[in-house]
């Protein structure tokens, strides 16, 4: 059973490399493509966790719809190379070490805390995958009201996008 472990580490590495590329790329279009890489490898990780429906939705909605929207907008407004501005001296000499120190301290605290121990020794991954039937039953019974609320939210978002993008007469 070594194959899932290899798949996990390859996808985790791809996701982290993609996220670093999002930061380092100068052109917005390169950032967008790197973000698609992150989303694709996360979809593989969802499959590995047994959440098939979420993996499909991740590819269809995130990597498909949302990122296509991003790429289209980048091309429409012709966003070029982004300008870089120097960050201040205080940020460079005090902020970065202090931020790193905060990170170390949080990691140390989490490592020794009850929460960290509970996560590390907690229940392992269950053997059986989630069935889409189970998820949809939950979605249409317990979460019916939020589900209907999201449809109204999407209607409002469509109207808002139309109003914003409309040309003034």
């Amino acid at each position, binding site marked *: 059973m070594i194959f899932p472990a290899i798949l*996990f580490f390859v996808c*985790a590495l791809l996701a982290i490399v993609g996220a670093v590329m999002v930061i380092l790329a100068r052109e917005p279009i390169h950032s967008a493509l790197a973000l698609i890489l992150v989303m694709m490898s996360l979809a593989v990780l969802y499959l590995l966790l047994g959440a098939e429906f979420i993996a499909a939705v991740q590819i269809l*909605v995130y990597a498909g719809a949302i990122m296509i929207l991003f790429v289209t907008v980048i091309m429409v407004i012709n966003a070029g190379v982004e300008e870089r501005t120097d960050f201040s001296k205080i940020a460079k000499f005090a902020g970065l070490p202090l931020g790193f120190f905060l990170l170390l301290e949080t990691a140390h605290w989490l490592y020794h805390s009850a929460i960290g121990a509970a996560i*590390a020794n*907690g229940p392992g991954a269950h*053997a059986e995958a989630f069935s889409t039937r189970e998820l949809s039953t939950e979605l249409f019974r317990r979460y019916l009201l939020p589900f209907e609320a999201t449809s109204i939210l999407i209607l409002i978002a469509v109207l808002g*996008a139309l109003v*914003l993008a409309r040309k003034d007469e």
Partner: protein
Amino acid sequence: MSVIPISYYLVLSAVLFGLGVVAFVFKRNVITVFMSVELMLNAVNLAFVAFARAHGQVDGLAYVFFVIVVAAAEAAVGLAIVVMLAQNRESLNVERMNSLKF
């Protein structure tokens, strides 16, 4: 199937969220700042799925579904705002967007 401990997924989620925060702070283009928000949402989704798996409950997956739907709505409105900004201003640099500043 379950050889990978759930904590690995949580560490990966934390690393991705941290990189998203760094991108949010460091990037100067409105679109890439917006993309780093999406990166953070993705990291949180991974933590949701990992916890749902660890506890064997479907609720986490339902929340991920809602997060994805809300992110789609947010992207639609946010990108419309970005298009508006691009039409009305010459630059998309966030440091130039200071008309609400004293």
